[in-house]
């Protein structure tokens, strides 16, 4: 039970490749923090630096009251769950869970009590005599968790723990992990590339790209007010739709024009824009798939789109459309209040007239992708840096090395 602070933490490999740039965060006690981002964004590296498996090239990591930069992993009072579980194949479940306690010279009867207790919490009491080979994926996952909770650590680190499970089990384990977090009251730091996991589990989410922190925020805020185009596109499936639009000022009220349709901007954006020194003429309009309204054909301020494909998902329909300039937005239409006939009609349509739900839109800078309504928004890392950033493979590192020479 402890706070974790990262101050200007960065990781640079020997060949000059920077995996993590200037990472700052204050993680509160008992908080569930999720690091999320595409592969190669440095989220696992960050977690491994907190664990002590990776050296820190700059900055400070503080767990509780201790600066742990040069501390061995075992002295940091953390527990880690690995993606491939890392269960010792030659030991039984009981021995695996007891291993860390044995190393800490805990008396035998206490070990037994703790192991049995942990097994009960996770529902693996019947499996204590088995070896990892004889367990299913979900059971292995529980054993890995058991090994972590038996130590009662200050911080729990989880490195993509659910990505080896099938979809159904993953959903189940997701809720169980959330419950476990409540029960244990420990700080959790969780790495995933799956934004659904991030959204459902995290108290706060850290979105990373190419070693840069993009945004640290609550799931709702991340979804409604992404700081830039990258975060907007990364969070949410299907992803946010982007349109090129012109920003116009109508007697103090801003609106955007997209395909000749006028979209009045909500107050929060208006306020933010009025505080800015200069306002660009061209912007990128971001609209979530559920925020389109299908209108009558001759309604004012609508724009036309042709339907290319429809995907009925049961509770909703995803419509892949195409607009005049070749941009293909995806629409998400709830079907719960539609009759079957209406649904068939919708799927059978060729053309739609669309309107945007004005209160929900976001506008982004066309050049650096910043959300124009967010103060001090982080720009999307540019392509050149991104190229170096997505490295991590040996090949890339070698290339970098060559270039430096």
């Amino acid at each position, binding site marked *: 039970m402890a706070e974790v602070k990262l101050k200007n933490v960065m990781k640079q490999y020997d060949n000059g490749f920077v995996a993590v740039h200037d990472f700052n965060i204050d993680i509160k006690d008992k908080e569930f923090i999720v690091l999320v981002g595409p592969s190669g964004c440095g989220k696992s590296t960050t977690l491994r630096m907190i*664990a*002590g*498996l990776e050296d820190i090239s700059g900055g400070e990591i503080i767990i509780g009251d201790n600066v742990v930069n040069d501390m*061995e*992993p*075992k002295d940091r009072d*953390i*527990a*880690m769950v*690995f*993606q*491939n579980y*890392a269960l*010792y*194949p*030659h030991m039984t479940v009981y021995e695996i869970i007891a*291993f*860390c306690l044995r*190393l*800490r010279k805990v008396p035998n009867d206490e070990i037994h009590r703790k192991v049995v207790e942990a097994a009960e919490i996770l529902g693996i009491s019947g499996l204590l005599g088995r070896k990892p080979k004889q367990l299913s994926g979900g059971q292995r996952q529980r054993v890995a968790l058991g*090994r972590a909770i038996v130590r009662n650590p200050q911080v729990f680190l989880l490195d993509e723990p659910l990505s080896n499970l099938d979809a159904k089990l993953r959903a189940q384990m997701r809720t169980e992990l959330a419950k476990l977090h409540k029960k244990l009251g420990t700080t959790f730091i969780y790495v995933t590339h799956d934004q659904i996991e991030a959204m459902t589990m995290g108290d706060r989410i850290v979105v990373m790209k190419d070693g840069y922190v993009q945004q640290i925020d609550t799931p709702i805020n991340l979804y409604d007010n992404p700081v830039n185009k990258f975060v907007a596109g990364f969070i949410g499936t299907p992803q946010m739709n982007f349109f090129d639009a012109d920003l116009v000022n109508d007697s103090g009220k801003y609106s955007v024009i997209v395909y000749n349709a006028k979209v009045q901007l909500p107050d929060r954006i208006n306020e933010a824009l009025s505080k800015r020194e200069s306002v660009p003429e061209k912007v990128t309009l971001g609209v979530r798939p559920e925020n389109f309204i299908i209108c009558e054909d001759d309604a004012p301020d609508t724009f036309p789109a042709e339907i290319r494909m429809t995907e009925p998902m049961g509770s909703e329909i995803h419509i892949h459309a195409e607009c005049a300039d070749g941009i293909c937005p995806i629409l998400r239409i709830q079907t719960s209040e539609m009759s079957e006939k209406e649904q068939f009609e919708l799927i059978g349509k060729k053309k739609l007239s669309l309107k945007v739900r004005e209160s929900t839109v976001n506008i982004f800078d066309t050049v650096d992708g910043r959300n124009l309504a967010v103060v001090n928004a982080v720009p999307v890392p540019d392509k050149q840096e991104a190229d170096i950033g997505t490295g991590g493979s040996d090949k890339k590192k070698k290339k970098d090395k060559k270039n430096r020479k």
Partner: protein
Amino acid sequence: MSEKKKYRSKSGRERVTRILIYIFLTALCLIWLIPFIYLVFQAFRGESRSMVTYIFPKEWSFDNFIFLSTKTPFWSWYLNTFIIALFNAVLQSAIVLCVAYALSRMRFKGRKFIMNLMLVLGMFPGFLSMIATYFILKLFGLTSENSVPGLIIVYAASSGMGYYIAKGFFDTIPRSLDEAARIDGASRARVFFCIIMPMAKPIIIYTIMMAFMAPWGDFMYASLITFGHEEAYNVAVGLYKWLDKEHISNYFTIFCAGGLLVSIPITALFMALQKYYVEGVTGGAVKG
């Protein structure tokens, strides 16, 4: 109906191929075994000790073995070889496994260079350094009658270079196991002995077998370093002396009897550990 016929003819053809393959393999096997069978028969030949032109002995006896045990220093050579092989098995296995683990898991300056250097050095035939090795050992008084410790040092000293197969095996063990153990509180040494070693049984056995067999049959170094001191010979050098011009007519069947005895421990070891041996050789490559 016609389909059934077709199927039959296909299986018939298959059977013929299979029979041919087995005949071929049996022939190969016999060719391979002939020298050994010949050796066994000669070892039990009682009528004369010289080389003869026939295979089957006219008179069967244990005389050769009795002669070997009573009138030659064979058993002292045997003991020498056994001591050397045993010590080497222990030392070399320990060195090879440690080197392989370090090269597989730790990242340090010069790691790549060391690996390449050892690979290149390994390509030079061993006899290139023989003379130098001999003089160095002589400096320490570890040649001639003191050859046994000298030979142990020679065999064990260069053993780290044989790290390749063991490293390949360790590379297949996920690193996250090491990391999990380190977070659990284990030191590097503990990770090696408590986590990695129990998982590496096949490769440990393979390494021990290799380390035992190499000095057991070595002739080159043993003959140089013992330098004519009969009491320090190992079996290969000792037995070979009986094959020169002056001895061969009186010692040929004795040589065969000695050869038979030499092959026993190796064969026994191999039989006992065969299962692990195959696993060890292929395990490094395919084990996920």
